């Protein structure tokens, strides 16, 4: 029996010990008329060989196009060691480390993760993870609302240059708690949000703003003026929530350092840990990173590991500050989060250890260089231009002047190229625009292949043909 070790003999002995005649007797407290019949819509059992065949067929159906798509998920090289160790049974099949003494592996690793993440972000404190970048932003907002006692408005500014999916998830999650999320439009020339626009929205909403969100690099790949904005926010009693790509923080000024020295950076930093060792995997599992200043530590949601000592004075690790959490505080907890994304954090920690700062820097720099190379080649093509003037990091918005973005992307796909993210739905004001991304994985050859394909598609009217075909 699949995953049932019982022999007939043992079943008999066990039933005898219990004092019933059959297993079915054990369900006699369930009202008989409610008992389920056969689960017809569930197929019959397959053996491992059959399921393997099925899954290989399914996996092979998925596209193997060359990926120039980012928009929140990035194809990076992951050293083989990372998941070979992460999937060791001792990490893979353990529970949340409630019994500290029997979980020192996971606990120490998580402490190391916290240490690495605070090093990377230059923040004081990191928790052990949230679900993903988007839900982490939502929790960061709720945290800011709890933390900023001087503000009563529960109003949060969010530039529209923040990942639209993140903004949507944040809406869903903060919705019940009377928090108002206020869009701040980005500047159409630079592709970033300006202090002007922020001030304008602040005034338009009565001046009392609880916190503001700032993504670096932003959804367009543009680099925000984080210093000036952070300073202004702090001068106006507004907490700053940074949304970051942690890999990129190896080379960019990290949130803990934003603004003037005395303001000591962003108050909360969140983002998605995916670029640090998680495969794209159709969307997850990734993990949300969440960091904050020391002063906010009792407001942060999620698990936190602390270093302590045992009876002999020997160093060891435990879950700590549990009084914030639902299993202790119940309805007064900082969040309902319980299970988080531990195994991906395990992978990410091993990834960071193997890469080191230099590995991350070289990887990030390679992404930047590759994207510059791609963009240069694409904008040399008639009908393709850069949308924004701000400095970029590894993603760029391109406007297509002659053909619909959807058709161009489709035609590229037919040439084996996943050409980018179609922005026309989320940002109609940009016209036909796509967001392209290039990581260190892309070779010069592949970049040329993209440029050639784009040239073909735009010049030969290939899109029209492809549309006709697919109709």
């Amino acid at each position, binding site marked *: 029996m699949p*995953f*049932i*070790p*019982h022999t007939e003999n*043992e079943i008999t002995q*066990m039933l005898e010990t219990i004092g019933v005649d059959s297993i*079915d007797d054990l369900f006699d407290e369930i009202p008989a008329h409610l*008992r389920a019949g056969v*689960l017809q*819509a569930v197929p019959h059992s397959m053996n491992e060989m059959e399921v393997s065949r099925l*899954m290989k067929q399914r996996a092979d*159906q*998925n596209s193997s196009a060359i990926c120039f798509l980012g928009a929140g998920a990035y194809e990076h090289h992951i050293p083989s*060691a990372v998941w070979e160790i992460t999937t060791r049974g001792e990490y893979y*099949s*353990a*529970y949340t480390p*409630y*019994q500290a*003494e029997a*979980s020192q592996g*996971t606990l120490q690793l*998580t402490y*190391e993760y916290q240490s690495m993440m605070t090093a*990377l972000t230059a923040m004081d404190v990191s928790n*052990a993870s949230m*679900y*993903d970048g988007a839900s982490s932003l939502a929790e960061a907002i709720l945290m800011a609302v709890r933390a900023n006692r001087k503000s009563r408005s529960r109003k949060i500014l969010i530039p529209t240059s923040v990942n639209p*999916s993140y903004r949507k998830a944040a809406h869903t*999650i903060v919705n019940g*708690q009377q928090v108002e999320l206020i869009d701040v439009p980005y500047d159409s020339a630079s592709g970033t949000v300006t202090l002007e626009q922020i001030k304008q929205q602040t005034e338009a909403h009565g001046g009392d703003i609880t916190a503001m969100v700032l993504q670096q690099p932003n959804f367009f790949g543009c680099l925000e003026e984080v210093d000036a904005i952070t300073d202004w926010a702090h001068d106006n009693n507004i907490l700053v929530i940074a949304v970051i790509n942690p890999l990129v*923080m190896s*080379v*960019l*000024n990290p949130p803990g350092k934003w603004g003037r020295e005395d303001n000591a950076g962003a108050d909360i930093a969140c983002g998605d840990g995916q670029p640090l060792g998680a495969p*794209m*995997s*159709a*969307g*997850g599992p990734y993990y949300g990173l969440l960091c904050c200043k020391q002063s906010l530590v009792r407001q942060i949601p999620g698990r936190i590991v602390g270093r*302590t000592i045992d009876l002999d004075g020997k*160093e060891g690790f*435990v879950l700590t500050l549990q009084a914030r959490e*639902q*299993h202790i505080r119940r309805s007064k907890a900082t969040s*309902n989060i*319980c*299970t988080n994304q531990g*195994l991906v954090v395990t992978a990410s920690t*091993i990834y960071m250890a193997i890469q*080191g*700062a230099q*590995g991350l820097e*070289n*990887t990030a*720099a390679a992404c*930047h*260089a590759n994207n510059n190379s791609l963009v240069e080649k694409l904008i040399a093509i008639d009908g393709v231009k850069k949308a924004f003037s701000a400095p970029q990091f590894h993603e760029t918005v391109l406007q297509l002047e002659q053909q619909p973005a959807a058709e161009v992307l*489709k035609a590229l796909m037919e040439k084996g190229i996943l050409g980018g993210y179609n922005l026309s739905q989320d940002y109609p004001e940009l016209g036909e625009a796509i967001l392209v991304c290039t990581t*260190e994985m892309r070779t010069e050859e592949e970049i040329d292949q993209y440029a050639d394909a784009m040239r073909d598609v735009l010049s030969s009217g290939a899109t029209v043909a492809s549309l006709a075909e697919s109709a």
Partner: protein
Amino acid sequence: MLIFEHSSEGRRGAPQAPAEKAPLTAIPEKLLREGSAALPEVSELQAVRHYTRLSQKNFSIDTQFYPLGSCTMKYNPRACNSLAMLPGFLNAHPLTPDAQNQGFLACMHDLQSMLCEATGMAAFSLAPMAGAQGEFAGVAMIEAYHRSRGDDARKEILVPDAAHGTNPATAVMCGFTVKEIATLDNGDVDIDALKQAVGPHTAGLMLTNPSTLGVFERNIEAIAKVIHEAGGLLYYDGANLNAILGKIRPGDMGFDVIHSNLHKTFSTPHGGGGPGSGAVGVAERLRPFLPLPVVTEEDDSYRYLTAKDCPQSIGRLSAFMGNPGVLLRAYIYMRLLGREGMVRVAEFATLNANYMMAEAKRRGFTLAINDRRASHEFIITLKNEARDYHVSAMDFAKRLLDLGYHAPTTYFPLLVPECLLIEPTESEAKEALDGFMDALEQIKHEAETNPELLHAAPQTLPVKRLDEVRAAKQLDLAFKKQ
């Protein structure tokens, strides 16, 4: 020793990354980082050795019996891991056009259908990334449902006092107030108290059935009636679905919305704290509110439903599609089980729990609830031992670690004093159950004769009992180089 303590300045692990750093052209100086992040500088061997050795300091299902109540620590089949990690899945960008993502979408669609069938619900969304987020989605749907009907006064969610902490925490996150309903000594909800509590302010009731006390709520039909008649909805916390899989379906009990912890019932790994999945299922009337994305089949191909298709959706809970890697593992597991294997899950999980409960009784332990069937778990209370020998449930737990068993859940549910919530799961052999019961009996004997042994436990693990108070007072949450 921390990985940071193996670090040596200037050490470089070249084979894993580009060897040279390309220039960061066109980025203004002030946006660049000053100096490198203080990550450890170790070789690949040092990292591999460190994390391999660390792993050996964990208890896990793959190495120990792990009867952690409410957590369903069953075997995580290795095939689920290796097949979910096929390159075709791992290398799929989440925004791949549906047409190029059919293999993955087919799995997700089939998974939705199988979950509907197994739970008796009309529709499922796989978006929530853990049980608690499933609860969030469910309660948010309850809110959206009432609001859509202009039924705005329903601001209260009821939960039994035995409920898991995520239940009240979730209700509050969704903007509700929470009222607790008492539980009777026999483990059933106090229906009279429930009747008293309901009213026009009642948005719904969150219930785990079988409950966290390890018994099946026999009055579930009556409870459903009370709630529904009051205009509320019934929420099913699926953490204990393992106990009844294929035996009775939440939908048939009258639940309007449920979440299922795929990382419990459907055997995706717990990973030392996730990732999980809290897929949510709904009865027909709640379908419009399901969180996105959801996969639908049209003309023999699959696509994601969008906000345009589902204008009343509560929205999205994550940037992409929940935790696909977890969902794939659950899907593979369900195909391995098939319909015949699913019902065996409940049967043998229940057999194991009742066998252990009978053995516990035989060996002189006090059960939290008497003369009831155990579901897939049951509770021993050590209040007598605590009183007579000054040993706590925690002492028992730590001593069990010494004997090579992971401890059961302690001090939950909160209403049972000095409790051990024991859930063996169906995948454990009688040999493991007997070994564990022998250990428990031995410890009971030790408590009576040599309680110091328990207080000083554990002795055989990498560390002795850790000072949690110190950890919370003298916060040390990240390594800082001296």
